Each structure stands twice: as structure tokens, then as C-alpha cells.
């Protein structure tokens, strides 16, 4: 069903290829061209939104590897993003913005290592216990950030612009290329990870970890590996976020943010590569839409209570998560598959 009629495989590498037909290639190149020329015709404000979407996508891809592929529920993702953000902020503050190329992987590795610490319980427990452990992890990380001297504490810390060679990423448009480049790379990595031995081991652990262990999958190392990879992505996203905003404090990394990340990958579709993309775009655009609509609605209906502006966003997000879980637990990605099948078979739907 995934391919158009008449597509046949004669070699193993054509069978393995992600982009099979010429149409695939054409559409893919068109998409890339469209995405990477966005700064030319978007206003500055919307480039900012696109940047936020890119950063969130990197983090959500990591979370999707952890939850969607390996089945380890983590509700402390914002905490791991915070670790990456602060590592990058502290390193570039001490060494200068030119060291961004060092700070970026360093923040990923740092977040991955912290993720390993909170991932250790996953070897013995799962489900609710793991969820609670990661929530606890989030609170502990934020507490350390708020009280440790070098992070700037409650006040926050200023972050220099990212610099690679002579290139200083000062404007939204230049940062767009940095962020989208990394987002594209991480999506590419995640797509291929799912098809390797490691990815299949993750899926086996998700579906039934005891059976996976009997089959010879080492639970300890694969669960920890999933935590490391997921949190590595979070760290990279954190580093990008720090240099994009230019100022960090712990307000950016609340528990609600973590819940929102889980919501995004559920809305998009767990365990698919395209899912996080849909989910992130959906949630961030909903956010932006609310930003525009709320003042208009408040102006039109003066009888609304004053809490409307602050209350409507969490209400809508919570409602979306609940509705998706009840009505379409496989997320937008599944609808996308159905749509593709329908359009291939059109006009004869059998």
C-alpha cells in the first residue's frame, strides 16, 4: 500500500531505499527547496516561528525515539533540554561564541549523560514508575539550575550569538539555516535509526521487553542507549534554543513544557518519523493562531472573564491531547498514510 502500483524491486538496495520513484525524488527536492527558501519570502516574525518549530522538532524527534520507538515514557524532556541549553550557554560564555561548534556536541553529550542517570531506573521499572522518575528528574534538574552559581540562578544567563568561523548567526534568517540544517539532519538520522539493528531492538523492547530479552536483546544497554540518544537530541535542541533566544532562565523549561512535548508526538503519531513533524507544526501553529485570535475574540466578546487569555491555551492543548488519544491514537501520521493511499487509488477506491 505504501507504494504506487507497478513499483517492483529487483535489487536489495532498491528495496531498502526510502525514496523509490522519480516522483518521490521530485517531491522531496521540491520540499527541501521550499523549506530552505522560506526566509526569502517570509516576514521576520514568521521566520522566528519557523525557527522555533525547527528547534522543537529536534527535541521532539529525540523524544519520539525514546517514547515512540523504545516505549520508555519520559515526562522530563524539558529538563534535559535545559541541561543542553545551559551547557552551551556556560561554554560559549567562558570561551566565546566562536566555540559554538564545540559547545553544540558538548551540550548534546552532557544532556545525554544526565539522561543516562535518570534512565537507570528504566532497567527495573516501566510505565508509571518511569513517568514519575522522569518528572522527579525534571524538578531536580531545574532546582540545580536555579541554585548553582554558574548558571546565573533565578536571574538567568546571557548567551552570545552562535559563531562558526566568520559567520555570526545574528539575524533570524541566518539562524534559520543553522536550525533547519540541524533539524533536517536529525530527521534523517532518526529515519535511518529506525531501520537499523538498534532501531528494531528498540521496537522489540517497546512491544514486549521480556520477550525482547529472551530473544537476545540486552535490555540494560538498549534502554540506556535510547535514553542517551533521546536526551542527546534534547541537548542539541537546548543549545540551539539558548543561542536563538540569547537569554536563558529556568522559566523556559517548566513541567508543562515537558507535557506539551509528549502531547506533540502523540498528536503527530508515535513511532513514525513524520509524526513529530506534524505534531510540532500543529502545536506551534495552534499557539501562534491563539496569539492572533485571543485579542480579537476578547475585543468581540467583552463579557469574557479576564482569565480567558491565559486559560485558553492550556485548555485547548489539553483538550487536543485527550481528543487525539481517544479518537486517533495513531496520530496525524496515520491519517497521512490513509490520505496517501486514498489519493493513489482515486478514483477507484478498491
Amino acid at each position: 500500500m505504501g507504494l504506487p502500483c507497478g513499483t517492483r524491486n529487483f535489487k536489495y538496495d532498491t528495496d531498502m531505499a526510502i525514496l523509490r520513484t522519480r516522483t518521490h525524488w521530485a517531491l522531496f527536492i521540491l520540499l527541501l527547496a521550499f523549506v530552505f527558501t522560506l526566509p526569502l519570502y517570509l516576514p521576520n516574525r514568521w521566520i522566528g516561528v519557523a525557527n522555533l518549530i525547527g528547534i522543537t522538532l529536534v527535541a521532539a524527534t529525540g523524544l519520539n525515539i525514546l517514547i515512540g520507538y523504545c516505549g520508555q515514557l519520559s515526562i522530563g524532556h524539558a529538563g534535559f533540554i535545559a541541561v543542553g541549553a545551559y551547557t552551551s550557554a556556560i561554554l560559549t560564555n567562558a570561551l566565546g561564541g566562536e566555540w559554538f561548534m564545540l559547545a553544540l556536541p558538548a551540550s548534546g553529550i552532557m544532556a545525554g549523560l544526565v539522561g543516562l542517570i535518570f534512565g537507570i531506573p528504566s532497567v527495573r521499572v516501566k510505565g508509571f514508575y518511569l513517568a514519575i522518575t522522569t518528572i522527579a528528574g525534571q524538578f531536580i534538574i531545574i532546582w540545580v539550575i536555579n541554585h548553582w552559581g554558574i548558571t546565573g540562578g533565578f536571574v538567568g544567563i546571557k548567551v552570545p550569538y552562535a559563531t562558526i568561523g566568520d559567520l555570526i548567526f545574528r539575524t533570524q534568517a541566518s539562524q534559520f539555516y543553522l536550525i533547519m540544517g540541524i533539524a533536517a539532519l536529525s530527521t534523517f538520522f532518526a529515519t535511518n535509526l529506525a531501520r537499523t539493528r538498534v532501531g528494531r531492538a528498540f521496537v522489540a523492547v517497546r512491544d514486549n521487553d521480556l520477550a525482547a530479552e529472551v530473544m537476545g536483546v540486552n535490555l540494560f544497554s538498549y534502554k540506556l542507549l535510547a535514553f542517551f540518544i533521546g536526551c542527546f537530541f534534547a541537548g542539541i535542541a537546548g543549545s540551539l534554543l539558548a543561542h536563538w533566544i540569547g537569554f536563558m532562565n529556568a522559566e523556559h523549561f517548566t513541567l508543562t513544557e515537558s507535557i506539551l512535548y509528549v502531547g506533540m508526538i502523540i498528536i503527530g503519531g508515535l513511532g513514525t518519523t513524520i509524526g513529530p513533524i506534524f505534531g510540532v507544526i500543529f502545536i506551534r501553529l495552534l499557539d501562534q493562531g491563539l496569539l492572533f485570535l485571543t485579542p480579537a475574540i476578547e475585543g468581540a466578546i467583552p463579557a469574557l472573564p479576564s482569565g480567558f487569555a491565559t486559560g485558553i491555551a492550556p485548555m485547548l492543548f489539553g483538550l487536543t491531547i485527550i481528543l487525539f488519544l481517544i479518537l486517533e491514537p495513531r496520530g496525524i501520521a496515520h491519517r497521512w498514510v490513509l490520505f496517501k493511499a486514498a489519493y493513489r487509488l482515486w478514483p477507484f477506491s478498491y
Partner: protein
Amino acid sequence: MAELLQYLITGLAVGMVYALIGLCFVLIWKSSGVANLALGQLVLLSSWFTYSMLVQAKLPLWLGFMAVILFALALGWIIERVVLRPLIAQPILSLITVTLGLGYFIEGVVSFIWPWSVAALPRLFPKEPIHIGPTVVSQEHLWVAGISLLIFGLLSLFFRYHKMGIAMRATADDQLAVQACGIPVTTIFSRSWMFACVLAAVGGVLVSSIGGITFGLVETGLKAFSVVILGGLNSFGGALIAGPIIGLAENLGGGYLTPYLWGGIKDIIPFIIIIIVVIIRPYGLFGEERIERI
């Protein structure tokens, strides 16, 4: 010495409230196997509703509390019917995340209807402190501990002798067998959510009558998870014992460790306990160890 006694008594009293809120989790977990992560938000919502009844509508105390209990029952029924009924027999991952979404939603509702974010309930208990030897103990804390103990007693009697309570325990044990006996499982689920919401409401009123209503109540709900983790997810007695332990650890640790560590350690101690317990003894002090088969 006076300081120590002070910490001990405050810790025990606060711990009893944690235990009460934790109980609300255990109730749902025991009967339906749903991990309710929206605990703090339920506490928050019912505290604000109490505020509306007592302060804004100026109802007399008894009528106000009747209204709160009715509200909690209705809330529990609606949540079970609308959110969780469609998800019966879904994987645990969905059951956990749906309560996360629910908590998010309730937080939005709270800031929608009550945008002040901080308020105080009228005093329910006499304020004069009691002197026990050299220590000064606030009477409120003792009242709170007493009421929590009373509710514990009632609940354990209910689960031991009442038909509904026995049916709930049976459902927790084996849903299929219970269905075969002709017990309506969905009714049991619905009742347990209603009871749990009432517990959350009582816990909320008790906590916020002392500390006021803030968004910190959500964190109180999260701290109550350390009680269930330490006591064991499906043990009432465990919650009763673990609650005071957490309260003591929080207050003693907050009192004696703060000079050596960074400030605010008090709020982190329950979370540190969670991690330690999960690593060392995941099923808690009195929880039942699950043996899994393929």
C-alpha cells in the same frame, strides 16, 4: 530540641495530608489500573471551587462543603465517563498521557475561571498555637492530621465491610473474574473516580486552609506521588505509613540540610526519595511485587 519537635510534628501533619492525596491515587490505581497524574490539578480545582462557594457565594460552611462534595462527585463521574471510558483496555502509555492532558486542561480551566492565581480560604480551624512543653505547634496542623486519620479509618472500614468496597478490591484483583461474577466493572471504575475526586477535594481544602490556594498545589499533588511510590502503588496502609515518612523527611531535611546545601532543598526531597526508591525497591515498602510473564 524544641526545633526538632517542631519539625517532627509539622512533618507528621503535612505527611498525613500527602497520604490523603496519595490515597486518591491508590484508589484509582487499585480498581482500574489507571495512573492518575492529574492529581495536583484535581486538588487545585476543588480548592478553587471551595473558594468560590465559601468566599464568593458566601455560603455557610456546611452548605459550602456539601456543594464541594457534590461537585467532586460530579467531576469524578464526568472524568471517568468522558475521558477514561473510551480508553478501557488501551496500553498503559495512553492511560498515563491522557491524565497528563487532563491535568493540562484543568490547569487551563482554573486560570480561565479564577485568574487571580492566589487566594486564601476562610479559617476553618482555630488559629491559636498550642504549647507542648517548649514547642509551639499550630493547632491547624493537628486538626488536619486528625481529619486525615479519621478519613483513613472510614475508608479502610468501607473497603473491608461494605459491598461496594469489596467489589472494588475484587476488581483490582481480577477484572475478568469480577465480570464473570456479575459485578458491573464500569460502575466500579466510575465510583472509584468519584471517591478519589472527593478525597482530592478534602485534601485540597485541608491543604489550602493552611497555606492558601496557589499553583503550588499542583506540586503538592506531585509530591504525593512520592508517598505512593514509597508505600507501594496498591497499598492503603503503605500510603498511611509512607505519608508521615515523606513529611518528616521533607521537614527535617529542610530544617537541617538547608545550611549545608542550596536553599529550597525542602521542595526537592520528595523527588529525590522517588528516585532512590525506584532504583532500590521499585514496588515500595508494602506494594505487591509484580511478576511478569511473557
